[in-house]
Protein backbone atom coordinates (compact mmCIF):
# COMPACT_ATOMS: atom_id res chain seq x y z
CA UNK A 1 0.00 0.00 0.00
CA UNK A 2 1.38 3.29 -1.00
CA UNK A 3 1.13 6.27 1.23
CA UNK A 4 -1.94 8.27 0.69
CA UNK A 5 -1.88 12.01 1.07
CA UNK A 6 -4.12 13.04 3.93
CA UNK A 7 -7.08 14.92 2.55
CA UNK A 8 -7.00 18.62 3.30
CA UNK A 9 -9.39 19.90 5.94
CA UNK A 10 -12.05 22.04 4.43
CA UNK A 11 -11.49 25.48 5.86
CA UNK A 12 -14.35 27.11 4.03
CA UNK A 13 -16.48 27.49 7.14
CA UNK A 14 -13.64 28.96 9.18
CA UNK A 15 -14.78 32.47 8.35
CA UNK A 16 -18.31 31.71 9.54
CA UNK A 17 -17.07 30.38 12.86
CA UNK A 18 -14.80 33.35 13.33
CA UNK A 19 -17.66 35.71 12.51
CA UNK A 20 -19.85 34.04 15.08
CA UNK A 21 -17.23 34.51 17.79
CA UNK A 22 -16.57 38.04 16.63
CA UNK A 23 -20.23 38.97 16.91
CA UNK A 24 -20.42 37.43 20.37
CA UNK A 25 -17.52 39.54 21.62
CA UNK A 26 -18.85 42.63 19.87
CA UNK A 27 -22.12 42.29 21.72
CA UNK A 28 -20.68 41.54 25.15
CA UNK A 29 -17.96 44.17 25.07
CA UNK A 30 -18.44 47.11 27.36
CA UNK A 31 -15.39 49.28 27.16
CA UNK A 32 -15.52 50.58 30.66
CA UNK A 33 -14.67 54.15 31.22
CA UNK A 34 -14.81 55.11 34.84
CA UNK A 35 -14.66 58.82 35.26
CA UNK A 36 -15.85 60.95 38.07
CA UNK A 37 -15.41 63.80 40.47
CA UNK A 38 -12.47 63.18 42.79
CA UNK A 39 -12.57 64.37 46.38
CA UNK A 40 -10.44 64.09 49.44
CA UNK A 41 -12.23 63.58 52.72
CA UNK A 42 -10.98 65.47 55.75
CA UNK A 43 -9.00 63.11 57.98
CA UNK A 44 -10.25 62.35 61.47
CA UNK A 45 -8.91 64.67 64.07
CA UNK A 46 -9.74 64.60 67.72
CA UNK A 47 -9.37 68.24 68.43
CA UNK A 48 -9.94 70.69 65.71
CA UNK A 49 -8.34 74.03 66.26
CA UNK A 50 -10.92 76.76 66.02
CA UNK A 51 -10.49 78.57 62.75
CA UNK A 52 -11.49 82.15 62.36
CA UNK A 53 -13.17 82.66 59.04
CA UNK A 54 -15.05 85.76 58.17
CA UNK A 55 -18.59 85.10 57.16
CA UNK A 56 -18.20 86.94 53.90
CA UNK A 57 -15.49 84.51 52.86
CA UNK A 58 -17.82 81.53 53.01
CA UNK A 59 -20.23 80.72 50.23
CA UNK A 60 -22.85 78.42 51.66
CA UNK A 61 -24.88 76.20 49.39
CA UNK A 62 -27.70 74.49 51.23
CA UNK A 63 -29.92 71.82 49.73
CA UNK A 64 -33.08 70.68 51.44
CA UNK A 65 -34.89 67.39 51.08
CA UNK A 66 -37.06 68.78 48.28
CA UNK A 67 -33.82 69.40 46.37
CA UNK A 68 -34.28 73.16 46.55
CA UNK A 69 -31.07 75.12 46.62
CA UNK A 70 -30.21 78.08 48.78
CA UNK A 71 -26.94 79.70 47.82
CA UNK A 72 -25.62 82.67 49.76
CA UNK A 73 -29.10 83.16 51.25
CA UNK A 74 -30.80 83.29 47.86
CA UNK A 75 -33.11 80.64 46.52
CA UNK A 76 -31.45 79.60 43.32
CA UNK A 77 -31.85 77.28 40.39
CA UNK A 78 -29.11 74.78 39.67
CA UNK A 79 -28.34 76.61 36.42
CA UNK A 80 -27.30 79.74 38.30
CA UNK A 81 -24.94 78.11 40.80
CA UNK A 82 -21.94 78.17 38.50
CA UNK A 83 -22.28 81.87 37.79
CA UNK A 84 -22.81 82.70 41.46
CA UNK A 85 -19.76 80.68 42.49
CA UNK A 86 -17.60 82.35 39.85
CA UNK A 87 -18.72 85.79 41.01
CA UNK A 88 -17.96 84.87 44.60
CA UNK A 89 -14.51 83.39 43.93
CA UNK A 90 -13.44 86.07 41.51
CA UNK A 91 -14.53 88.96 43.70
CA UNK A 92 -11.22 90.00 45.30
CA UNK A 93 -12.77 92.29 47.90
CA UNK A 94 -9.64 93.44 49.74
CA UNK A 95 -7.73 94.28 46.57
CA UNK A 96 -4.92 91.81 47.28
CA UNK A 97 -5.83 89.71 44.27
CA UNK A 98 -4.35 91.33 41.19
CA UNK A 99 -5.70 88.83 38.70
CA UNK A 100 -9.30 88.87 39.87
CA UNK A 101 -11.78 90.45 37.52
CA UNK A 102 -14.70 90.62 39.92
CA UNK A 103 -16.62 93.61 41.25
CA UNK A 104 -14.43 93.98 44.35
CA UNK A 105 -17.55 93.95 46.43
CA UNK A 106 -16.63 94.47 50.08
CA UNK A 107 -19.47 92.26 51.23
CA UNK A 108 -18.19 89.26 49.26
CA UNK A 109 -14.96 87.25 49.41
CA UNK A 110 -11.60 88.94 50.08
CA UNK A 111 -9.34 86.75 48.00
CA UNK A 112 -9.69 83.43 46.12
CA UNK A 113 -7.20 81.99 48.59
CA UNK A 114 -9.53 82.75 51.48
CA UNK A 115 -12.79 81.95 49.75
CA UNK A 116 -14.42 78.76 50.94
CA UNK A 117 -17.44 77.05 49.47
CA UNK A 118 -19.50 74.88 51.77
CA UNK A 119 -22.17 72.45 50.68
CA UNK A 120 -24.75 71.57 53.29
CA UNK A 121 -27.15 68.85 52.40
CA UNK A 122 -30.06 67.16 54.01
CA UNK A 123 -29.99 63.41 54.56
CA UNK A 124 -32.91 63.05 52.17
CA UNK A 125 -31.43 65.12 49.37
CA UNK A 126 -31.15 63.10 46.19
CA UNK A 127 -27.70 62.07 45.08
CA UNK A 128 -28.42 63.42 41.61
CA UNK A 129 -28.83 66.97 42.86
CA UNK A 130 -25.81 66.58 45.09
CA UNK A 131 -23.60 65.55 42.18
CA UNK A 132 -25.02 68.31 39.98
CA UNK A 133 -24.03 70.89 42.58
CA UNK A 134 -20.57 69.39 43.00
CA UNK A 135 -20.20 69.40 39.24
CA UNK A 136 -21.23 73.03 38.90
CA UNK A 137 -18.84 74.10 41.65
CA UNK A 138 -15.93 72.24 40.05
CA UNK A 139 -16.95 73.87 36.77
CA UNK A 140 -16.69 77.29 38.39
CA UNK A 141 -13.13 76.57 39.54
CA UNK A 142 -12.23 75.13 36.16
CA UNK A 143 -13.59 78.18 34.38
CA UNK A 144 -11.41 80.52 36.45
CA UNK A 145 -8.35 78.31 36.17
CA UNK A 146 -8.80 78.07 32.42
CA UNK A 147 -9.03 81.83 32.20
CA UNK A 148 -5.83 82.39 34.17
CA UNK A 149 -3.82 79.72 32.37
CA UNK A 150 -4.95 81.17 29.07
CA UNK A 151 -3.75 84.58 30.17
CA UNK A 152 -0.42 83.47 31.68
CA UNK A 153 0.65 80.55 29.53
CA UNK A 154 -1.70 80.49 26.57
CA UNK A 155 -3.20 77.06 27.18
CA UNK A 156 -6.31 75.77 28.85
CA UNK A 157 -5.77 74.32 32.30
CA UNK A 158 -8.36 71.57 31.97
CA UNK A 159 -7.16 70.50 28.53
CA UNK A 160 -3.54 70.16 29.55
CA UNK A 161 -4.48 68.38 32.75
CA UNK A 162 -6.55 65.75 30.98
CA UNK A 163 -3.89 65.39 28.27
CA UNK A 164 -1.29 64.59 30.91
CA UNK A 165 -3.66 62.15 32.60
CA UNK A 166 -4.24 60.24 29.38
CA UNK A 167 -0.58 60.44 28.36
CA UNK A 168 -1.28 62.46 25.22
CA UNK A 169 0.60 65.56 26.27
CA UNK A 170 3.22 66.66 23.77
CA UNK A 171 6.07 68.58 25.26
CA UNK A 172 7.75 68.72 28.61
CA UNK A 173 5.41 67.15 31.11
CA UNK A 174 7.30 68.25 34.19
CA UNK A 175 7.32 71.87 33.16
CA UNK A 176 3.62 71.70 32.45
CA UNK A 177 3.02 70.17 35.87
CA UNK A 178 4.77 73.10 37.51
CA UNK A 179 2.59 75.49 35.57
CA UNK A 180 -0.55 73.60 36.54
CA UNK A 181 0.46 73.79 40.19
CA UNK A 182 0.93 77.52 39.80
CA UNK A 183 -2.57 77.92 38.38
CA UNK A 184 -4.03 75.72 41.07
CA UNK A 185 -2.46 77.97 43.68
CA UNK A 186 -4.16 81.02 42.16
CA UNK A 187 -7.58 79.45 42.67
CA UNK A 188 -7.17 76.74 45.31
CA UNK A 189 -10.17 74.48 45.52
CA UNK A 190 -11.57 74.94 48.98
CA UNK A 191 -14.74 72.95 49.06
CA UNK A 192 -15.87 71.81 52.41
CA UNK A 193 -18.65 69.41 53.10
CA UNK A 194 -20.67 69.73 56.21
CA UNK A 195 -22.32 66.64 57.58
CA UNK A 196 -25.81 66.03 56.32
CA UNK A 197 -28.50 67.17 58.67
CA UNK A 198 -31.32 65.02 59.90
CA UNK A 199 -34.50 66.18 58.27
CA UNK A 200 -37.22 67.27 60.62
Amino acid at each position, binding site marked *: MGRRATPEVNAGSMADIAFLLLIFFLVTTTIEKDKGI*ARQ*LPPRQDEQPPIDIKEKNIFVVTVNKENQILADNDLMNIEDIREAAITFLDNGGDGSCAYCKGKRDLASSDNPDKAIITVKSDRETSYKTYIQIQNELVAAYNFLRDRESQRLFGFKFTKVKSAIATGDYKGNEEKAQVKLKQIQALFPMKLSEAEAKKSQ
Partner: protein
Amino acid sequence: MSKFNKKKGGELPAVNTASLPDIVFMLLFFFMVVTVLRKDNMLVQQKLPKADQVEKLKKDRSVFIYAGKPSSRYQEKFGTEGKIQIGDKYTDINSLEFALSEARTKLIPELQGKVVVGLKVDEDTNVGLLQDVKEKLRDLNMVKIIYITAPGNDVKQ
Protein backbone atom coordinates in the same frame (compact mmCIF):
# COMPACT_ATOMS: atom_id res chain seq x y z
CA MET B 1 -3.79 36.92 -34.80
CA SER B 2 -5.66 35.01 -32.17
CA LYS B 3 -3.38 36.66 -29.68
CA PHE B 4 -5.32 39.86 -29.92
CA ASN B 5 -8.74 38.31 -29.89
CA LYS B 6 -10.75 39.29 -26.91
CA LYS B 7 -11.78 36.46 -24.75
CA LYS B 8 -15.39 35.63 -25.20
CA GLY B 9 -17.84 35.68 -22.32
CA GLY B 10 -15.59 37.69 -20.03
CA GLU B 11 -17.11 36.71 -16.70
CA LEU B 12 -15.84 38.59 -13.69
CA PRO B 13 -13.49 36.41 -11.67
CA ALA B 14 -14.74 35.69 -8.15
CA VAL B 15 -13.20 37.82 -5.44
CA ASN B 16 -10.64 35.85 -3.58
CA THR B 17 -11.92 35.39 -0.04
CA ALA B 18 -9.10 33.26 1.22
CA SER B 19 -7.82 35.99 3.55
CA LEU B 20 -11.25 36.74 4.99
CA PRO B 21 -10.80 34.38 7.95
CA ASP B 22 -7.52 36.11 8.78
CA ILE B 23 -9.13 39.52 8.80
CA VAL B 24 -12.02 38.33 10.90
CA PHE B 25 -9.68 36.60 13.33
CA MET B 26 -7.72 39.79 13.69
CA LEU B 27 -10.88 41.68 14.63
CA LEU B 28 -11.88 38.86 16.91
CA PHE B 29 -8.61 38.97 18.82
CA PHE B 30 -8.87 42.74 19.16
CA PHE B 31 -12.29 42.47 20.76
CA MET B 32 -11.24 39.56 22.94
CA VAL B 33 -8.36 41.58 24.29
CA VAL B 34 -10.30 44.77 25.01
CA THR B 35 -13.33 43.02 26.45
CA VAL B 36 -13.74 43.41 30.17
CA LEU B 37 -16.32 41.04 31.44
CA ARG B 38 -18.19 42.59 34.32
CA LYS B 39 -16.63 41.35 37.52
CA ASP B 40 -19.27 42.14 40.05
CA ASN B 41 -22.80 40.96 39.78
CA MET B 42 -25.00 44.00 40.27
CA LEU B 43 -27.44 43.72 43.14
CA VAL B 44 -28.38 47.39 43.22
CA GLN B 45 -29.71 49.75 40.60
CA GLN B 46 -27.00 51.72 38.90
CA LYS B 47 -28.18 54.75 37.03
CA LEU B 48 -25.26 57.06 37.62
CA PRO B 49 -25.77 60.82 37.74
CA LYS B 50 -24.29 62.89 34.95
CA ALA B 51 -21.33 65.20 35.27
CA ASP B 52 -18.83 66.68 32.86
CA GLN B 53 -16.08 68.13 35.06
CA VAL B 54 -14.52 64.74 35.57
CA GLU B 55 -11.19 63.07 36.13
CA LYS B 56 -10.11 59.62 35.14
CA LEU B 57 -9.88 56.89 37.70
CA LYS B 58 -6.74 54.85 38.09
CA LYS B 59 -8.08 51.32 37.99
CA ASP B 60 -5.22 49.49 39.65
CA ARG B 61 -5.61 51.27 42.96
CA SER B 62 -9.33 51.42 43.31
CA VAL B 63 -11.93 49.69 45.40
CA PHE B 64 -15.57 50.03 44.44
CA ILE B 65 -18.57 50.62 46.60
CA TYR B 66 -21.96 50.38 44.96
CA ALA B 67 -25.06 51.86 46.46
CA GLY B 68 -28.65 52.25 45.43
CA LYS B 69 -32.02 50.61 45.64
CA PRO B 70 -31.97 46.84 45.18
CA SER B 71 -32.45 45.79 41.56
CA SER B 72 -36.03 45.02 40.58
CA ARG B 73 -35.58 41.27 40.87
CA TYR B 74 -34.27 41.55 44.42
CA GLN B 75 -36.82 44.09 45.60
CA GLU B 76 -39.28 41.50 46.86
CA LYS B 77 -36.68 40.09 49.18
CA PHE B 78 -34.79 43.19 50.23
CA GLY B 79 -37.30 46.03 49.86
CA THR B 80 -36.71 49.37 48.17
CA GLU B 81 -34.55 51.06 50.77
CA GLY B 82 -31.08 52.11 49.56
CA LYS B 83 -28.44 49.45 50.13
CA ILE B 84 -24.67 49.16 49.89
CA GLN B 85 -22.92 46.52 47.83
CA ILE B 86 -19.25 45.60 47.88
CA GLY B 87 -18.02 42.80 45.68
CA ASP B 88 -20.83 40.35 45.13
CA LYS B 89 -22.93 40.88 48.20
CA TYR B 90 -24.92 43.42 50.14
CA THR B 91 -23.03 44.94 52.99
CA ASP B 92 -24.34 46.51 56.14
CA ILE B 93 -22.96 49.90 57.08
CA ASN B 94 -21.38 48.37 60.19
CA SER B 95 -19.59 45.59 58.33
CA LEU B 96 -18.30 48.05 55.74
CA GLU B 97 -14.95 48.12 57.48
CA PHE B 98 -14.39 44.40 57.11
CA ALA B 99 -15.62 44.28 53.51
CA LEU B 100 -13.41 47.20 52.51
CA SER B 101 -10.25 45.84 54.06
CA GLU B 102 -10.96 42.56 52.33
CA ALA B 103 -11.33 44.33 49.00
CA ARG B 104 -8.13 46.24 49.68
CA THR B 105 -6.08 43.10 50.15
CA LYS B 106 -6.86 42.13 46.56
CA LEU B 107 -4.82 45.05 45.25
CA ILE B 108 -1.07 44.85 44.75
CA PRO B 109 0.74 45.60 48.03
CA GLU B 110 2.59 48.66 46.72
CA LEU B 111 -0.63 50.45 45.98
CA GLN B 112 -2.61 49.50 49.03
CA GLY B 113 -1.63 52.69 50.80
CA LYS B 114 -2.82 54.87 47.94
CA VAL B 115 -6.18 53.30 47.54
CA VAL B 116 -8.94 55.34 45.91
CA VAL B 117 -12.50 54.45 46.71
CA GLY B 118 -14.80 54.61 43.71
CA LEU B 119 -18.35 55.37 44.75
CA LYS B 120 -20.90 54.18 42.25
CA VAL B 121 -24.12 55.49 43.62
CA ASP B 122 -27.49 55.48 41.93
CA GLU B 123 -28.91 58.93 41.33
CA ASP B 124 -32.07 58.24 43.34
CA THR B 125 -30.19 57.44 46.52
CA ASN B 126 -30.39 59.69 49.55
CA VAL B 127 -27.30 61.65 50.47
CA GLY B 128 -27.66 60.30 54.01
CA LEU B 129 -26.52 56.84 52.96
CA LEU B 130 -23.54 58.35 51.19
CA GLN B 131 -22.79 60.37 54.29
CA ASP B 132 -22.69 57.23 56.43
CA VAL B 133 -20.30 55.61 53.97
CA LYS B 134 -18.06 58.65 53.97
CA GLU B 135 -17.92 58.74 57.76
CA LYS B 136 -16.84 55.09 57.77
CA LEU B 137 -14.20 55.82 55.15
CA ARG B 138 -12.82 58.59 57.31
CA ASP B 139 -12.59 56.16 60.22
CA LEU B 140 -10.69 53.74 58.00
CA ASN B 141 -8.42 56.52 56.78
CA MET B 142 -9.34 55.89 53.16
CA VAL B 143 -9.83 59.54 52.39
CA LYS B 144 -9.43 59.57 48.64
CA ILE B 145 -12.75 59.08 46.99
CA ILE B 146 -14.16 59.54 43.54
CA TYR B 147 -17.82 59.82 42.68
CA ILE B 148 -18.15 57.83 39.49
CA THR B 149 -20.49 59.58 37.08
CA ALA B 150 -21.88 59.13 33.60
CA PRO B 151 -20.77 61.52 30.87
CA GLY B 152 -23.03 64.42 29.99
CA ASN B 153 -24.70 67.21 31.88
CA ASP B 154 -28.36 67.85 32.53
CA VAL B 155 -27.82 71.41 33.63
CA LYS B 156 -28.29 73.92 30.85
CA GLN B 157 -26.06 76.93 30.91
